[in-house]
């Protein structure tokens, strides 16, 4: 069974189409990157996969859960999909550890002691063991994002989705977050990463999709794709991104 099966996903905001028939199949253990200019629909697509956004037409199956058009089913996935937001969205009134243990306790019914133990292990994994009792406001952006990753991992998701996880970070904090994601890929976890970091996509993702104007323009093994962009649009996009440095 595939981790993600999306066939012909379509969505419009009012009269403006944002997804024009997106296909994506992700096998368990695969790491896939989605790149493209802003407004290309890549984040919207990821949000549809997570059940945070409805889609108008097409078929979608995520972690074995079927989604139907017109229905946002994030809750139906009950933590089987981990989502990492650009803006972290940590719960500000809870400590790092409480952020990580909340869902396992409340959704999975894991005991407090067990959740704490697993939560501390997750925080250790992302290098935050010493900040376990700090509140989000006391953490740097990079630490907050690593905590958000730990929070998602604590639900033992089958798929991890990253929506521009480093876009809100100061440049010097990007690496620590990418390192964590790199480790997850090395562990063989299933990842889909929407990113503006081309080097990172090429290095970590086995496969990359280039999206523009709501459609997948090019897709294939990351090395080939970045080495030999076929379409004019992808070539120009890469030029612009590389020039921006």
């Amino acid at each position, binding site marked *: 069974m595939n981790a993600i099966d999306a066939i012909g996903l379509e969505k419009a905001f009012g009269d403006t189409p944002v997804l024009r028939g997106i296909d994506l199949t992700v096998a368990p253990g695969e790491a896939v990157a989605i790149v493209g200019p802003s407004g290309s629909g890549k984040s919207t697509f990821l949000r549809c996969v*997570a*059940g*945070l956004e409805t889609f108008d037409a097409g078929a979608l199956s995520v972690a074995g859960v079927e989604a139907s058009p017109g229905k946002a089913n*994030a*809750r139906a*996935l*009950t*933590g089987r*999909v*981990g*989502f990492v*937001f650009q*803006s972290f*969205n*940590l*719960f*500000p*009134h809870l400590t790092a550890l409480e952020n990580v243990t*909340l*869902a396992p306790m*409340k*959704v999975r019914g894991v005991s407090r002691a067990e959740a704490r133990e697993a939560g501390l292990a997750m925080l250790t994994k992302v290098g935050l063991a010493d900040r376990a009792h*700090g*509140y*989000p*406001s*006391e953490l740097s952006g990079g630490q907050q994002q690593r905590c958000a990753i730990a*929070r*998602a991992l604590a*639900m033992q998701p089958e798929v991890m989705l990253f929506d521009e996880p480093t876009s809100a970070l100061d440049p010097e904090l990007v690496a620590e977050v990418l390192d964590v994601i790199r480790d997850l890929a090395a562990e063989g976890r299933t990842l889909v990463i929407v990113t503006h970091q081309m080097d990172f996509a090429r290095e970590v993702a086995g496969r990359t999709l280039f999206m523009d104007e709501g459609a997948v323009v090019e897709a294939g093994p990351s090395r080939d794709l970045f080495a030999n962009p076929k379409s004019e649009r992808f070539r120009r996009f890469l030029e612009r991104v590389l020039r921006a440095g």
Partner: protein
Amino acid sequence: MNDAAHLIGQSLPLLLKGLGYTVALSAIGMGFGLALGFGLALMRLSPRAFLRWPAGAYVSAIRGTPLLVQLFLIYYGLPQFGIELPPLLAAGIGFSLNVAAYASEILRSAIAAVDRGQREAAAVLGLSPTQTMALIILPQAARTAIAPLSNSFISLVKDTSLAATIQVPELFRQAQLVTARTLEIFTMYLATAAIYWLVCALLAWGQSRLERRAAWGRR
């Protein structure tokens, strides 16, 4: 001066008895008002018009009319329809209904002000709507609401003096009775004002404690 101290000392038991009513009325008004106000806030935030509309009309009616008139309607007006309420109950209902309207506006805006990303984070983690409200939205909304709700509470304590007009023997009513007997008008009302101030100062202190507790690491 000695006379004044003596007078206050003598009438203190009466004033304290009145204070008991004042505190009870304030607590009842705030307690039921908050509960009712929360329900109204949820109605006003509902996507369903048949829930939103009545709540909006209620808030408009209560906020748009004087509290004193509301109390008179309940205590003097309802008996015309065979509903005779004892003074304390009438006042308790009046203050609760009044506080509810203001509290609902405070809670509605505080809930709406919680970032949308918080709901989304809760949803992808699999939390139910009820869990999301109780564990994620309300604690954050409560922090925003502490200051304006404290304002309402402090106003309410002072507004309970209006209950004197519908026969509730609260603090101000007791002061009136004492002054009628002793004619030490200024002293008595000043002492009464001081007692109201003490209660309000205590509430303000409670507010700052709550605000410190809800700082979540931001110090």
